C-alpha cells in the first residue's frame, strides 16, 4: 500500500468513526496464552453464536462469531492460543499472519492475572503490531483470592492500553470489556498502544535499520506495521524474510553488528531477554503478592496425582472412568436413536408416502436410504457429545496436562506425544470420538499422526464381525482369537507410527515443553457451549458426507430396481468385479467383497449385509403399530435409555440383550470360508479403510481431504498385505486353505 493510499485510509477511518460508525462491523481479534481462560471468555461472550471451522490450509481450529453489542455489529475472531508470536509453530504463524495481514480493528488480549509475567510477554509482542489493544485481565477473582493485588490503572498508564479485570468463569467484567473495546475502536487518534523501549542498544540498531530500510525498500515499510517489521528483521525472522523475499541484507548485518558484540549472544536471545525484561519490570511494578505463600491446592493435588507410585494407577483409573462415561453413558441414547429411526420414523414415512401413491422404490429410498442415512449420522451424536464434554473437562480442569506428563515416556518411545494416549484409548470404543479427541494435541504433526493411527484400534463396530466368525470357526478359543486381533491392531499402530516417522513426518520431532496449569474447576456453561459447538459441527459438516454415502449405498444395493437376487444388484456386480483382488487373501467371492463395500458405512454392517446375501429374510407380516403406540414407544424407550444410562453410572446390573437367530447365515459362512480365510477376513475388516464417519471426522478436523485420503489408502494396503501374509503364510505352514 502506498503512503498516499494509507492517508486516504486514515481519512476514511476518521469519517467512518464519525457519523456512520454504527453501520460498520468492528472486527475484534482475541489473543492470549493457552490456559488463560480465553476459550471460556469467548464462550461466555459469544455462546452458541460461535462458528467453528479451520484456518485455511492448516489443522488449526478457527472460531468466529458475529453479534451485536450496544447497537454495534461485532465480528469476534478467536486466534489460536499461543505463548509467543515466533515463526516456528503453525498456531503462532496463523495468529500473526492474521494480525499483520487482516489488520483487525482491535485486539482483545486475554491475560491470566495469576501468571502475569509470562502472559505479558505475549502482550509486549502484540503491542509491537500497533493495533489498538484492550487487555482482559482474566482469572482476576482467583488472583484476588490468592491475595494478589494488581494495579490495573498503573498498567494502563505504562502500556497505553485499556485494562479490564474479568472473570470468564463467573462472567464478570465481560460487558465492560466489550464496552471498552467499542470505545477504543471508536477513538481513532490516540488509540495505538505505547511504543515500549527495548533498551538503548536495540533502539539504536532499530533506528539505524529504519533509515537504511526506508531508503532501500520504501514500499515494504508502508505495507507492514513498521515497528513490528523492523523488530522481525532484527530477529531475522525466517517467516518474514521468506515472505518479503529478503536475505543477506548488508545494512542489517551492520545494524546488528554492535548489538551482537555488546551482548555476546544471538539476536533471538537478546530480543527474548528484552521482551521478558519489560514483562518482568511491569509485573514488578503492578503486582503485589502477599508475603506468606500458602501451599497451594494444585501442589497438594499433584503430590498425589503425580506421585511415583500412585501416578500411574490414578491415571489408569481416570482413563477407565473416561472410557466408561463416554461410551456406556452415551450408548443407550445411541441405541434409542437407532431404534427410533429404524422403527417409528420409517413407519411414519411409509404411512405418509404409500397413500400418496409413491412407488415402492421411493418408499425404500426414503426409508432405507434417507432415513437410514440420517440415522447413521444421528447415532454418533450422543457419543461425540459425551466425549467432547469429558475431554473438555479434563483439559479445563488441568488433568489433561498431567495425563500427558505421566504417559509421555511410553508414548514418546513410539514417536507419539503423551496426550496421544487418550485418542488411542477412545479409539477402542469408537474411532470417531478418538479422531476428534486428537484436538487436545497442540502440534499438528502429533495430531495428524495420532489420528492416522487411531483407526487401527479395534473399535466396538468390528466386534460383531469377530463374534460371528469366531463363533463359527473358533468356538473353543474365541476370546484368544479376538484378543489376537486387538493386539494385532496395537502392534501395527506401533509399526506404522515408526514408518510414518521416517516418511511422511520426517524431520524434527515435535517438542514436549508444556505448561502444567493450576487445577481449576471449568465452568459448566463453557463446557456445554464447547460440547454443543463440536456436536453441531459433526452433525452438519461431517454428517453431510456420511449421509451422502449412505444414500449411495442404497442405490448400489437396490438398483436395478426389482432384482430378484442380490448378485444382480449394482452392489453384487461391484462385489463380483473386485472379488478377484481378494483371491490371493482367501475370500475372493462376491459375497465377501460386497459386504466389505457396505462395511465402509460402519464395519458392523458387514454382518448385516452377509445376512441379507446369505440368508435373506422373508418378509413377515407384522402387526403395524398405530401412531399412538409409536409415539408412546418413542417416549417410553427414551425414558428407558435414561434409566439405563443412570444405571450404568451407578453400576447396577442390566438385562442382557437377546441374540438374533443367525442359523442360516452361519451355515452359509461355514461353506464359504475356512478357519484360515476367516481369520484373514477378520484381520482385513479390522484394518481396511476407516468407516465413512471416521473419514468425515478426519476431513472435518484437518480441513483437508489429504489426511483422510492417506488414511484410506495406507490402511487398505495394510489390510490387504496383512490378510495376504496370514492366508498365504498359513497355507505354507499347512494350516489349510
Amino acid at each position, binding site marked *: 500500500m502506498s503512503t498516499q493510499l494509507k492517508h486516504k485510509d486514515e481519512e476514511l477511518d476518521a469519517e467512518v468513526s464519525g457519523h456512520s460508525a454504527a453501520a460498520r462491523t468492528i472486527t475484534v481479534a482475541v489473543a492470549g496464552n493457552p490456559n488463560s481462560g480465553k476459550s471460556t471468555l469467548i464462550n461466555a461472550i459469544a455462546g452458541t453464536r460461535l462458528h467453528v471451522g479451520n484456518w485455511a490450509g492448516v489443522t488449526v481450529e478457527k472460531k468466529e462469531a458475529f453479534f451485536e453489542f450496544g447497537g454495534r455489529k461485532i465480528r469476534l475472531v478467536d486466534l489460536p492460543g499461543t505463548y509467543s508470536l515466533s515463526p516456528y509453530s503453525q498456531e503462532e504463524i496463523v495468529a500473526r499472519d492474521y494480525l499483520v495481514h487482516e489488520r483487525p480493528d482491535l485486539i482483545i488480549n486475554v491475560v491470566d492475572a495469576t501468571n502475569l509475567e509470562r502472559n505479558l510477554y505475549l502482550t509486549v509482542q502484540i503491542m509491537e503490531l500497533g493495533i489498538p489493544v484492550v487487555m482482559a485481565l482474566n482469572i482476576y477473582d482467583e488472583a484476588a483470592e490468592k491475595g494478589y493485588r494488581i494495579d490495573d490503572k498503573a498498567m494502563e498508564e505504562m502500556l497505553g492500553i485499556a485494562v479490564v479485570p474479568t472473570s470468564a468463569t463467573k462472567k464478570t467484567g465481560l460487558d465492560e470489556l466489550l464496552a471498552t473495546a467499542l470505545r477504543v475502536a471508536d477513538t481513532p487518534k490516540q488509540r495505538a498502544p505505547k511504543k515500549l523501549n527495548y533498551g538503548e542498544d536495540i533502539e539504536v540498531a532499530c533506528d539505524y535499520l529504519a533509515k537504511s530500510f526506508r531508503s532501500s525498500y520504501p514500499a515494504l515499510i508502508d505495507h507492514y506495521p513498521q515497528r513490528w517489521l523492523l523488530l522481525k528483521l532484527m530477529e531475522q525472522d525466517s517467516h518474514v524474510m521468506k515472505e518479503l523475499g529478503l536475505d543477506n541484507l548488508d545494512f542489517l548485518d551492520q545494524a546488528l553488528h554492535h548489538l551482537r558484540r555488546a551482548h555476546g549472544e544471538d539476536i533471538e536471545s537478546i530480543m527474548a531477554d528484552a521482551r521478558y525484561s519489560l514483562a518482568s519490570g511491569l509485573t514488578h511494578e503492578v503486582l503485589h503478592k502477599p508475603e506468606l505463600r500458602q501451599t497451594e491446592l494444585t501442589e497438594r493435588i499433584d503430590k498425589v496425582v503425580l506421585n511415583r507410585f500412585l501416578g500411574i494407577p490414578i491415571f489408569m483409573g481416570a482413563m477407565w472412568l473416561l472410557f466408561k462415561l463416554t461410551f456406556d453413558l452415551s450408548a443407550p441414547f445411541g441405541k434409542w436413536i437407532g431404534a427410533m429411526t429404524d422403527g417409528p420414523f420409517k413407519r411414519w414415512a411409509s404411512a405418509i408416502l404409500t397413500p400418496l401413491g409413491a412407488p415402492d422404490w421411493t418408499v425404500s429410498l426414503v426409508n432405507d436410504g434417507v432415513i437410514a442415512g440420517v440415522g447413521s449420522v444421528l447415532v454418533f451424536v450422543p457419543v461425540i457429545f459425551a466425549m467432547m464434554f469429558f475431554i473438555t473437562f479434563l483439559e479445563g480442569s488441568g488433568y489433561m496436562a498431567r495425563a500427558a506428563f505421566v504417559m509421555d515416556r511410553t508414548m514418546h518411545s513410539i514417536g507419539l506425544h503423551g496426550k496421544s494416549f487418550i485418542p488411542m484409548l477412545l479409539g477402542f470404543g469408537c474411532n470417531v470420538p478418538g479422531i476428534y479427541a486428537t484436538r487436545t494435541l497442540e502440534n499438528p504433526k502429533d495430531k495428524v499422526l495420532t489420528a492416522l493411527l487411531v483407526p487401527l484400534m479395534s473399535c466396538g463396530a468390528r466386534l460383531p464381525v469377530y463374534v460371528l466368525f469366531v463363533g463359527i470357526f473358533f468356538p473353543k478359543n474365541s476370546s484368544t482369537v479376538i484378543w489376537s486381533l486387538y493386539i494385532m491392531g496395537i502392534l501395527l499402530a506401533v509399526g506404522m507410527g515408526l514408518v510414518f516417522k521416517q516418511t511422511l513426518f520426517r524431520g524434527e520431532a515435535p517438542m514436549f*515443553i508444556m505448561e502444567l496449569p493450576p487445577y481449576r474447576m471449568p465452568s459448566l456453561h463453557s463446557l456445554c457451549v464447547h460440547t454443543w459447538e463440536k456436536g453441531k459441527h459433526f452433525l452438519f459438516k461431517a454428517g453431510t458426507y456420511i449421509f451422502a454415502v449412505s444414500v449411495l449405498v442404497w442405490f448400489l444395493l437396490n438398483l436395478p430396481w426389482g432384482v430378484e437376487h442380490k448378485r444382480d444388484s449394482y452392489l453384487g456386480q461391484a462385489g463380483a468385479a473386485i472379488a478377484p483382488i481378494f483371491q490371493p487373501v482367501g475370500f475372493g467371492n462376491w459375497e465377501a467383497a460386497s459386504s466389505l463395500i457396505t462395511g465402509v458405512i460402519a464395519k458392523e454392517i458387514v454382518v448385516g449385509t452377509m445376512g441379507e446375501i446369505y440368508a435373506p429374510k422373508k418378509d413377515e407380516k407384522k402387526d403395524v403399530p398405530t401412531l399412538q403406540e409409536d409415539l408412546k414407544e418413542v417416549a417410553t424407550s427414551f425414558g428407558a435409555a435414561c434409566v439405563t444410562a443412570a444405571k450404568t453410572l451407578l453400576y447396577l446390573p442390566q438385562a442382557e440383550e437377546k441374540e438374533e437367530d443367525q442359523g442360516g447365515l452361519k451355515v452359509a459362512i461355514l461353506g464359504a470360508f475356512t478357519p484360515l480365510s476367516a481369520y484373514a477376513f477378520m484381520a482385513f475388516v479390522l484394518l481396511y479403510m476407516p468407516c465413512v464417519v471416521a473419514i468425515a471426522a478426519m476431513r472435518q478436523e484437518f480441513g483437508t481431504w489429504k489426511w483422510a485420503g492417506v488414511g484410506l489408502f495406507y490402511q487398505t494396503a495394510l489390510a490387504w498385505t496383512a490378510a495376504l501374509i496370514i492366508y498365504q503364510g498359513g497355507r505354507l505352514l499347512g494350516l489349510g486353505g
Partner: protein
Amino acid sequence: MNLAKLKPGQKGKITSIGSIGPLKRRLMDMGVLVGEDVKVLKVAPLGDPIEVSIKSYNLSLRKKEAEGIAVEVAG
C-alpha cells in the same frame, strides 16, 4: 551441570542455553532464560519428563530437552 540432572527439590540458576533453533526459541518464549532461577519439582513416574518451576509457573519438559540447559546448582 544441566537441568536434566537436577534432583527433585534442587534449585539452580540458568547459565546458558545450548539448544538451537525452534527448541531454543520455544524455551525462551516459555521464560527459560539465562539468569533465571529454576527448581525441579518432579520427575514423571516413568522417569521422564520432568516438571520444573520457573517464572512462578510450572513447566514440564523431556529430559532430552532439559539437557541443553546449563545450570549452576544453588543450595
